[in-house]
């Protein structure tokens, strides 16, 4: 019996969301009195053994470059090999794109109950109940997993990364490869140099109040000063002021950053459905009656074109740049 955490990489780098899942799995193993191991697929920029510093004893590594593109079936086979070798009872993923593709397959294969999008460690005082956000952030559900083997995907920004020391983990190679993958990846376009929206700790978002795409410079400066990702409301993406992958809300991306700054967005319920899992929300709007103020933690009433540059200036002062 043990906890196994799937740690995914993109171009050799381990993403923040995966390290959060890793720390979640290590904390869970401690809570239930067992060991934590990790499984990694593809080439890593750093040494797989270094994952020991997050508290895992062993790292199962599928080294084949065929894993550098993600095929859900091939990943499933490789992770299954690690599940068997480590006799895992709980398997933890990030609720990121890869986790969404692979965790359900592993759960189905093992006939394991799945809780997707966990926001806290399980309550193991009486059974095994995992808290997750439901109704697009409007409530939480505590979901009991009743099967012996369990699969959890951890919502990004819900659990803190914890380095526990400088130990190195024992590395065991996996035999599996993705040679027979049924999905052939033709082209891969990485969004360059930006903070991925779903992982960002701070998100700066603009709405129709921005008046036009030519005005986005002030939001880019604000985002830059905070190392934040940019987002927008749906009408902004529909009008092609901003790319679709920045659209947040019920029909766009759901984000849960520590800080969400909404600029010139009215706060329609469909917009809030994508952002109300944010820990702290700041709203800047010239209309004191805008519905967004009801959901906000901090509000500023006034003209965004005057306010945003001043805010950026004050942040730069704080950061000493």
């Amino acid at each position, binding site marked *: 019996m043990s906890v196994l955490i799937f740690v995914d990489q993109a171009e050799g780098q381990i*993403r923040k969301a995966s390290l959060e899942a890793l720390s979640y799995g290590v904390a869970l193993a401690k809570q239930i009195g067992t060991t934590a191991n990790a499984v990694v697929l593809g080439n890593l920029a750093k040494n797989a053994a270094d994952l020991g510093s997050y508290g895992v004893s062993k790292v199962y590594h599928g080294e084949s470059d065929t894993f550098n*593109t*993600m095929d*859900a*079936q091939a990943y499933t086979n490789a992770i299954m090999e690690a599940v068997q070798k480590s006799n895992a009872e709980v398997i933890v993923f990030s609720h*990121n*794109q890869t986790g969404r*593709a692979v965790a*359900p*397959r592993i*759960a*189905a294969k093992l*006939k394991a*109950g*799945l*809780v*997707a*999008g966990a926001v806290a460690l399980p309550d193991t005082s009486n059974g095994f*109940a995992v808290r997750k*956000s439901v*109704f*697009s952030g409007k*409530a*939480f*559900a*505590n*979901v*009991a*997993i*009743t*099967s012996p083997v369990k699969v959890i995907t951890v919502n990004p920004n819900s659990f803190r990364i914890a380095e526990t020391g400088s130990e190195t983990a024992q590395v065991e190679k996996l035999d599996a490869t993705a040679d027979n993958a*049924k*999905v*052939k990846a*033709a082209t*891969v376009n*990485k969004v360059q140099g930006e903070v*991925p929206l779903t992982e960002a700790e701070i998100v700066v978002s603009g709405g129709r109040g921005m008046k036009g795409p030519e005005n986005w410079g002030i939001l880019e400066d604000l985002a830059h000063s*905070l190392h934040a990702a940019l987002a927008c409301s749906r009408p902004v993406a529909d009008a092609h002021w901003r790319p*679709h992958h920045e659209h947040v809300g*019920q*029909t*766009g991306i*759901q984000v849960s950053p*520590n*800080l969400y700054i909404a600029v010139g967005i009215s706060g329609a319920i469909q917009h809030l*459905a994508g952002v109300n899992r944010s820990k*702290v929300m*700041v*709203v800047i709007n010239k209309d004191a009656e805008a519905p967004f103020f*009801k959901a906000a*933690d*901090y509000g*500023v009433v006034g003209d965004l074109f*005057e*306010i945003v540059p001043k*805010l950026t*200036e*004050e942040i730069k002062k*704080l950061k000493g740049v």
Partner: protein
Amino acid sequence: MKILVCISKTPDTTSKIAFKENNTKFDEASVQWIINPYDEWYSLVRAIELKEKDASITITLVHVGGADSDPIIRKALALGGDEAVRINAQSDDTYFVAAQIAEVAKQGNYDLIFTGKETIDYNASAIGGMVAELLDLPYISLATKFELNSTTAVVTREIEGGEEVDEVALPAVVSCQKGVAEQRIPNMRGIMAARTKPLKVVEPTPIEALTKIVSYELPPAKAGVKMVPATDMAELVRLLHEEARVI
């Protein structure tokens, strides 16, 4: 070519979310039900567009739910599904639902199975992957574009930090999101035609649920918004730094 489109039912986003029986049950009293937007706007419409190009395509809708789901199934038929199967069972366990869909899929020999990216109530994003595993089929998650060749599909999907264009041999399971198609509104002809399209009700296969919702909680009420004068951004930065500790 046969396409199976998974349709789920969710409360309209503007519905008030409340719980009853000591927070153990969702209170459906004042809820308006809709087709899950990812199913209605993206996967179903894409299937209809494919059928408009190739009349030999048939679209079967599948839904796991009770008789109260029939209005949303009729709406999906009005948009352009050919026939529907409702598995007469209510469950919030992903494995149970996926296994029921897989049973229907096994009997129909579908070339393509579409799901939405996720349901907007339980937000699992998991049914597609489970169905694919239960049928031993490839799974393309989070598609933003979908094209058919004769025996393969070319799909653009969202991956960690970017996009990827994949080619996959059919049959396959694909979960659809924004980009795949544009929302449509049913017209009068579609609504009339939907009344006579077949909606078959089948009893569920006995499968054990592997999870159970034990309780719900509403998030703690916000303390209320703290207003900062537009002339004092230094104060806002101080509050975010010292009070909220987010910058």
